């Protein structure tokens, strides 16, 4: 392992390509030249192929076609470490918002009678189909998270997951608290930190773009209770929480619980 270059692949599923653009434009990427070999990253190198074996595979985008299901399975087979990159890959992205609607209806709304060369399906996170080893959250993800993960892999260690909410960074930064002060439905308490509370720093309530904190510590129920007290209806709460968390298995049940409590 000493002098062998680490093999990296960056693969795109259905997405805006914003995640890989974010990383491709970092100056620091040049430091990788003598450490890593890019086996597949179309945005960086024309000599790319999805067929090669890699040490680390980064996947952006949500699985939104039948072909992409096969692609992620192939990537998993050829990669030692699979990293889901960005809200689409990690949580299914904002395109999963309409998850509860009929797929046919959604398709018609967007594409009408347009013909495509692939077999479309409802958008889903990568983890639904393959084992994901690490996640880079955000829409787009933070450069520092990418550098941290890569740097940690390069020294042969394992990066830590972020398991605490945006509120932590909001307090560390010295922001006011929008949820308390303005009573706006800030999703900071249930959303994965790492953005340095960027939106609240500008007085904008967190919309949850980094997705809910894992490990069952996103307390949708307690937050829904607070939103309810502030006068929000169940649908409004669910709609807001689902923007980036449509596939979260606990969300609906936890919010429903609060509205069954009565009062």
């Amino acid at each position, binding site marked *: 392992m000493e002098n062998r270059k680490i093999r990296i692949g960056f693969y795109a599923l259905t997405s805006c390509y914003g995640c890989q653009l974010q990383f491709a434009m970092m100056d620091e990427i040049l430091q990788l030249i003598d450490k890593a070999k890019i086996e597949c990253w179309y945005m960086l190198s024309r000599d790319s192929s999805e067929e090669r074996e890699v040490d680390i595979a980064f996947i952006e985008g949500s699985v939104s076609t039948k072909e992409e299901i096969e692609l992620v399975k192939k990537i998993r087979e050829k990669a030692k470490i699979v990293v889901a990159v960005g809200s689409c890959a990690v949580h299914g992205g904002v395109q999963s918002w309409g998850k509860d609607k009929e797929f046919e209806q959604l398709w018609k709304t967007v594409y009408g009678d347009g013909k495509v060369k692939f077999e479309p399906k409802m958008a889903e996170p990568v983890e639904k189909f393959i084992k994901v080893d690490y996640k880079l959250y955000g829409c787009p993800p933070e450069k520092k998270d990418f550098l941290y993960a890569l740097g940690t892999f390069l020294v042969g260690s394992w990066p830590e997951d972020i398991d605490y909410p945006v509120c932590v960074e909001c307090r*560390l930064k010295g922001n006011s608290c929008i949820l308390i002060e303005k009573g706006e439905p800030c999703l900071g308490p249930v959303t994965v930190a790492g953005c340095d509370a960027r939106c609240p720093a500008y007085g904008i309530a967190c919309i949850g773009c980094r997705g809910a904190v894992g490990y069952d510590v996103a307390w949708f129920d307690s937050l829904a209770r607070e939103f309810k007290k502030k006068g929000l209806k169940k649908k409004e709460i669910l709609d807001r929480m689902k923007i980036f968390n449509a596939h979260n298995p606990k969300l609906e049940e936890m919010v429903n619980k609060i509205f069954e409590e009565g009062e």
Partner: protein
Amino acid sequence: MRYVKLPQENVYEFLERLKNFGKLYAPVKISEKFYDFREVDDVRKIEFHYNRTIMPPKKFFFLPKETMFKFSISKAEYNEVIENVEPFVIFGLHACDIFGLKVMDTIYLDEFPDKYYKVRREKGIIIGISCMPDEYCFCNLRETDFADDGFDLFLHELPDGWLVRVGTPMGHRIVDKNIKLFEEVTTQDICNFREFEKKRHQAFKYHEDWGNLRYLLELEMEHPMWNEQSELCLGCGNCNLTCPTCRCYEVQDIPNLDGDTGVRIRRWDSCQLRSHGLVAGNHNFRPTKKDRFMNRYLCKNSYNEKLGISYCVGCGRCTYFCPAGISFVDNLRTILGLEDKSCPPEMSEEIPKRGFAYASNIRGEEI
């Protein structure tokens, strides 16, 4: 102790001159309702009657986030990153916050000396200011409502200025260097000071004895309050992160892309977060939200031997800044039997044997 009077008309001149002793930080309004200690350019923006700052003054000494050292794996070495700290002045600390710093000192100067903390603590000039409590304040119950030391100067409000207590040689120097701004304390000033203190004492919401609280907390581990209130908790960490005495931190190593060098950083941590109790082998010794919720109550109410007070200084921040509206004081009063007089507390299910004292699974030698 030395006492002088700062007449009202000299206050802004005094504040301006504090800048000669270092960068000046003071409470200012940062949003519609909240305050924070910030660097002050225009001294007229300083708030003399703020309730509490969203960030506690520990932030000047124990930084919210800082780099501890740089390391190199190939050289097997690390170099501490300790910045050269210039003297600075923090104006406007309330008595509770001064006690907060004293609590921090018992940990980071005495128990676990922390050079990052110490280097800043030595350079910080502390100027206290009197306050009138609001409904969230309970420093009187914590015996932290009047600071005997821990400040260079302490200003007590008078109708026409401030009665100043001088606490340290640095305090003397500040007064001496600006002696023309000060006057002698008159009999009338003393009467006014006494009047203010009397009014202040009466303004506290509760006047009661909390001496046995920490023991009742241990005995009442099965109280229904814990379930009810932890259920409301968002686990966001605001209570810890606004607390003037919370001192846990989380460290992380951030390697560079060269596969060799990197930095170790630390940031304020919160015991309400999952990873606070997470140890090797993926074991979590506080696995549930309720465990974490209880931990803060027990930690804050434990006894600081050196100071003879609890770790909570009664500033009211954890209640005031709780997005779920959980009242620390109400919950403690519940445990004390002051909110709900029934004992045992009313519960729907059968009451289990209560507290540590009755735990059946304590391991140890058979007697």
